């Protein structure tokens, strides 16, 4: 199949269908609404369902219900909407149900604005909802990568029986790029028999599956949390993804940046290279698990004098960068938010002046 020109939001909707997800519940919010609009037209064509909830709180529990029944299900929203879904995310994670959540981030906090932002890094990687839980978080930098990550998210959610979040900024949702779709993935969740409440007559086993997030016995709850922790440790071991840029030779600065922000950094790195200043970049493709080891090794390379976390937020990912680097070199932050996106020229100036300090 040749390439088509799609808006990120449309491509995300189509990718979910190609991944065999025929259940979509959502509530409109800028800059994500085109997913709902696209799927309102497209889901009926493939025998799927799009149901708009009365709020994001309701949508969160519609996802929980469908996931608990073993259906492949997903939702999309933007920052304030994800806040409202966070309670359900905590419940779904505790009950170990697979689901995919897409957050097309806008400026916050509060109602904020409708322009692109990466202000939900903490929310996605460190909670949002209550309790000891983690989401597997992937951050695309292009429309094509958004397609690939959405398609990868469903099998990963099922493998770990845990929600997967795709964290894109508003630009990922709104910009248009040519995309190609990989082969369809129309399989059923393979491990459904072990956990889904599909009715005793529909399964090979003879004990009922129970989907719940209530554990009144403290020993049981501690054991359940240990089981969840073991799962997050497996993710840390097996699911780290990142992309390195300009790291073959020596470099004086290491940039860590994700999503569309990393594309601005690439342009800046190319300009700095022309001036004779070598700057490398690690772009985390998974934000949880975070590419700690790769960043630590890159920062520890001889000649690397500085690491900079460049974000469309006020210093969130920088905490993970510092934690990863463990003092091997100084760590700085640069960022803007609210819809202001740092320009390549700005990053060139910032890197130069940080080096002179």
């Amino acid at each position, binding site marked *: 199949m040749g390439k088509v*020109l799609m808006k990120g939001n449309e491509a995300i909707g189509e990718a979910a269908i190609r991944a065999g997800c025929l259940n979509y519940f959502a509530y409109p919010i800028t800059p994500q609404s085109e997913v709902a609009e696209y799927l309102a037209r497209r889901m009926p064509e493939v025998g799927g369902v799009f149901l708009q909830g009365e709020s994001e709180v309701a949508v969160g529990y519609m996802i929980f219900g469908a996931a608990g029944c073993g259906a492949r299900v997903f939702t999309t929203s933007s920052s304030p909407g994800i806040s409202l879904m966070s309670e359900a995310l905590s419940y779904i994670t505790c009950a170990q149900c697979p689901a995919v959540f897409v957050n097309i981030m806008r400026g916050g906090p509060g109602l904020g604005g409708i322009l692109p932002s990466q202000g939900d890094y903490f929310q996605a990687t460190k909670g949002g909802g209550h309790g000891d839980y983690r989401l597997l978080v992937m951050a695309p930098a292009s429309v094509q990568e958004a397609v690939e990550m959405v398609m990868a998210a469903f099998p990963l959610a099922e493998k770990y029986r845990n929600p997967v979040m795709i964290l894109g900024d508003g630009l990922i949702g709104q910009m248009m790029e040519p995309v190609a779709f990989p082969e369809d993935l129309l399989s059923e969740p393979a491990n459904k028999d072990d956990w889904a409440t599909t009715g005793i007559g529909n399964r090979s086993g003879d004990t009922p599956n129970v989907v719940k997030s209530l554990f009144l016995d403290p020993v049981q709850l501690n054991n359940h949390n240990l089981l969840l922790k073991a799962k997050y440790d497996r993710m840390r071991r097996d699911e780290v993804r990142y992309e390195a840029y300009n790291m073959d030779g020596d470099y004086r600065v290491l940039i860590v940046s994700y999503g569309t922000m990393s594309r601005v950094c690439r342009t800046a790195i190319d300009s700095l290279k022309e001036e004779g200043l070598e700057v490398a970049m690690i772009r985390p493709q998974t934000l949880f698990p975070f590419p700690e080891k790769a960043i630590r090794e890159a920062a520890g390379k001889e000649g690397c004098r500085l690491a900079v976390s460049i974000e469309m937020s006020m210093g969130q990912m920088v905490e993970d960068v510092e934690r990863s680097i463990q003092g091997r070199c100084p760590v700085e932050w640069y960022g803007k938010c609210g819809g202001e996106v740092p320009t390549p020229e700005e990053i060139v100036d910032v890197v130069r002046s940080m080096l002179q300090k």
Partner: protein
Amino acid sequence: MRAPLAIQLQGIVVIVGNYGSGKTEVAINLALACRRAEAHVRVIDLDLVNPYFRTREARYLLKAHDIELILPPAPYLHADLPVLSPAVSGAIRSPGPLTILDVGGDDVGATVLASLADAFRGHTIDMLQVVNPNRPNTDSVAGCQAMRIEIETAAQLAVTGWIGNAHLMEETSPDTIVAGYGFASELSRASGLPLSFITAPMALVGSLGDEAFDCPVLPIQRQLVPPWLLAEKITVPDSRTPGGATDIG
């Protein structure tokens, strides 16, 4: 070699089309091209449904080229609210030599036109539908025609012609343009509506050859770009050197 066909538009030109068909990029480049011949060109940003990549993003460029731009009031420029300034109907009532309306996508975006019916009354209107066959839903003649009916119903105005805007962003090749021209010509025959013009990236115009097309070609210099790319510097085609261009800043 024959001289390039010129785009001839006057009065009120309404640009409609499906989401992401390229209306805004066409409207901006059309305004810049027409400004070279017309004493006064005005653009109205009527996109009440799209949150990003709107004509307002090119407001400084258009101003620098002495093109009048009608926008929502400044505090609402980045709102996802359907703000319709009273200046819009005033401008439609007195369109001058050329007033281009850049309308939002699909029937939803075109709905605003119906509310301006009083202002349109008594004027001849060119309503041109932009089509890119590389977009979902408008990759067939039937798809474009279905979109046309939806837009006409919502707008309470008839489409009078097509703009062929076949492209794949940075991956656009001469083949994309030639295949897109074939598609737009077929659409024109099937619908009985003229193909007003097609577009091509300025960098490719020289390699295409004017003889290939029976309609004018609007060169596109991309202005609505993501933050890691630079907008193309506006140039005017130089008739003395085929494919050459003169920088006008």
